[in-house]
């Protein structure tokens, strides 16, 4: 169980990471980037893909594994039309209907890499925890299929998914990203402890999914 204070603290952690990521993204795209207040979602595995248009929605996904003092996963989801807009913005041409070329895929992955790195740098700075991220992996497929892998990693511990979600939007060219931080179960405790909000509700036992 999480107290309201812990949830707020996790939201704030998300906010700090996302703020830095939004700055990096706006520098990269030379445009103003809006972000929403991060959402801390504790929902059934099956509901996760609903925020990005449902399990069958065609999306680009960029996945990175976090290791270090905390471990977890980062998943950046860009719905198909927005991914096309982003490629068009960066490379000045529309991808073909068959999907992304190696060059286009590489551009998307690099943007994902920059966002995730800025997010993690801010998080690491704030919590004084060391973290590093893996080389990104890319998939262009159904949202449910893309989520299944990070959720499976989480599934060993919980019966519900725990994720910190931020949405980045660039209005003029209609570019839109969903950023998901999915910390491993034990790492939530470490994160909360690092910012001094660990005294409520934990009692040293693992969360049992019934939140």
């Amino acid at each position, binding site marked *: 169980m999480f107290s309201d204070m812990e949830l707020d603290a996790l939201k704030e952690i998300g906010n700090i990471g996302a703020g830095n990521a939004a700055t990096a993204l706006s520098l990269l795209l030379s445009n103003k980037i809006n972000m929403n207040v991060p959402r801390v979602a504790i929902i059934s*595995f099956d509901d996760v893909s609903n925020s990005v248009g449902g399990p069958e929605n065609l999306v680009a996904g960029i996945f990175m594994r976090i290791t270090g003092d905390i471990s977890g996963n980062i998943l950046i989801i860009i719905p198909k039309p927005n991914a096309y807009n982003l490629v068009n913005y960066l490379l000045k041409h529309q991808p073909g209907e068959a*999907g992304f070329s190696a060059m286009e895929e590489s551009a998307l992955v690099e943007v994902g890499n920059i966002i995730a790195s800025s997010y993690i740098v801010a998080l690491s700075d704030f919590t004084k925890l060391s973290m590093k991220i*893996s080389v990104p*992996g890319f998939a262009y497929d*159904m949202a449910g*299929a893309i989520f*299944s*892998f990070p959720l499976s990693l989480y599934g060993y511990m919980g019966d519900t998914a725990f994720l910190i979600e931020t949405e980045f939007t660039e209005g003029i060219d209609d570019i839109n990203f969903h950023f998901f931080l999915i910390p491993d179960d034990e790492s939530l405790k470490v994160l909360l402890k690092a910012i001094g909000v660990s005294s409520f509700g934990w009692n040293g036992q693992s969360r*049992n*999914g019934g939140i």
Partner: protein
Amino acid sequence: MVGTVRVGMAEYKVAKSPAILVSLGLGSCVGVALYEPTKKIGGLAHVMLPDSSLSGKKDFNPGKFADTAIDMMIQDMVKIGVDPKRLTGKIAGGAQMFQIKSDSSIMQIGRRNVEAVKSKLALLNIKILSEDVEGNYGRTIEFNCETGELTIRTIGHGIKKI
């Protein structure tokens, strides 16, 4: 669609003809479809992980793991009069969605799910009639309880009936 029953991630459901059991967007998860042809009763499990012994806690949702989900689903089928000896199976899913170099076996979760499902079904003497597994793409599957046919839809890899 009338008679469509959605089976979400880490769930299993049992239905009678003319129902169609559907799982949307399987990635590393494996869909296990069991069928009793004379009574036209089908069950579909959307398995996330290979083995319940790896669970971090004792009180878990049995639908998540290959071994427990299949057991529970068969129990539900037996309750409505299915003879487990008559069951046959079809499986789909178990993709590896992301290709990342990693020193641990976590990236191979799809393949491990497929292996776990196969060995569980072998243990129960349930024959796998057909399969469409692994690869690097997502699948939506529809299991028709009238015909026992499993339809697999993908993005960019066509439609298959097994």
